[in-house]
């Protein structure tokens, strides 16, 4: 079994998530071929990779919304590979999907209040409006009538209310204007300061480099490399090769 590469160095800190030899399938298609990585408390860890590498499938597998998977996923030392997604969420894992998942039949307020509180310590509505002032002005609007940036803010905001302290964000910057990307970057930095642990999936390497503590490179359903942010410059050439940038 292949171990996660160098980025595992920080594993002496409290380990929140440990993924070992994770395999996953969509129907007959074998997508993940033995993924290994870990995330420690208070870290922002980013999975980087090209389209179709298996990054989103990894997040969905951790969240329990991929039907067929094997291997080991341990969250706060509890094995969750066989746990249903609603129970995983109630253990304190929150997921913000790539397509944002804003509900058209719900207004902004209903979208915001939809995920139930799973733990004490979630952000209050006032704190959320402090982070995302735009949402306060759009509470009565239909969720899908918001701009792309506002929808992304809403998608992040609603999981902050729940009290979950492990956030999985799937390409939060996709399709957004630079000014909104910057705002989301600042939000992630604030959340990290507040003690949230974040697993981020990104294709936008420049954005990820401003927020992440560590990186894993995903290719063909495997983790092929990993390094800390401090090692970024030394790995730049490799990174360009991996990502094709």
């Amino acid at each position, binding site marked *: 079994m292949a171990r996660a590469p160098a980025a595992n160095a920080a594993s002496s800190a409290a380990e929140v998530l440990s993924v070992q030899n994770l395999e996953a399938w969509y129907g007959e298609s074998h997508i993940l071929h033995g993924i290994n990585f870990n995330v420690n408390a208070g870290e922002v860890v980013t999975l980087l990779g090209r389209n179709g590498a298996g990054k989103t499938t990894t997040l969905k597998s951790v969240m329990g919304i991929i039907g067929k998977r094997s291997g080991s996923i341990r969250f706060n030392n509890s094995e969750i590979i066989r746990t249903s997604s609603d129970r995983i969420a109630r253990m304190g894992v929150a*997921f913000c999907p790539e397509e944002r998942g804003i509900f058209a039949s719900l207004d902004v307020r*209903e979208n915001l209040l939809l995920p139930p509180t799973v733990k004490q310590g979630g952000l209050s509505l006032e704190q959320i409006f402090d982070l995302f002032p735009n949402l306060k002005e759009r509470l009565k609007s239909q969720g899908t009538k918001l701009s792309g940036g506002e929808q992304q803010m809403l998608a992040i905001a609603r999981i902050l209310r729940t009290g979950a302290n492990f956030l999985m964000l799937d390409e939060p910057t996709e399709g957004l204007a630079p000014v909104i990307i910057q705002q989301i970057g600042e939000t992630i930095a604030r959340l990290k300061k507040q003690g949230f642990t974040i697993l981020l999936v990104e294709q936008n390497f420049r954005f990820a480099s401003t927020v992440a503590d560590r990186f894993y490179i995903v290719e063909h359903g495997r983790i092929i490399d990993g390094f800390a942010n401090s090692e970024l410059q030394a790995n730049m050439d490799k990174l360009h090769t991996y990502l094709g940038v």
Partner: protein
Amino acid sequence: MQALYAQLLVGLINGSFYALLSLGLAVIFGMLNIINFAHGALYMMGAFCAYFLLSLTGLGYWWALIVAPIVVGIFGMVLERTLLKWLTGLDHLYGLLLTFGIALIVQGVFQNYFGSSGLPYAIPDELKGGMNLGFMFLPVYRGWVVVFSLIVCIATWFLIEKTQLGAYLRAATENPTLVRAFGINVPRMITLTYGLGVGLAALAGVLSAPINQVRPLMGADLIIVVFAVVVIGGMGSIMGSIITGFALGVIEGLTKYFYPEASNTVVFVLMVLVLLVKPTGLTGRAA
């Protein structure tokens, strides 16, 4: 003129049953994506439940209004847990065929034991008699059916459109996987929703028992019209089902007065017209 008002009242009463039944169908279709052809049989079971409560335990109409929807709703939840849940993700046709089969079996069993003729169920003493409104005579029980159905319909609409539970239901209709990933037990919610829809059908059955008697095929006669109501209103649309249910009942009543020959077909003619002009129904949204 009295005959016109009488037909309007009959239309409103039929509309009450259409609304209650199509509301249940809309709730079930919206959440489970199942075209519940067993709805008529479950409506009949509500009426029979009222009949059994009275004849076996002495519990009358008012008790039946509470107990029958619960008992039949639980039966519905067992059906969902044991049969319908296996159809998740499959084409609508499978659900339609399965529920049609369930309807045939349930109706067949009741017909075997009780024949096809109606069993009497008395109007409760409190709702006997009538009122002279000046322009027409209004039987109290029929007025009660219209008002009570309207209250139940509005309460159901409120539950689904204006409460947190309703927000869960609407969200799970759109994206059950994500709603579950938020920590909501969607499979349990689906079972309860089916129970709610079935309970509404059973409630309509209890309301109908004193007017139409209790018959094994009472639901089979009604269900085709109710499906037409749902199609006209828009599959899965709660308010659409309520408004269309009452409106089509009234239109049917007016047709009985002005052109009786068309009274049995007017609903289906309207359905065809609506499908041609707006295939998603009057208040339905495109998928």
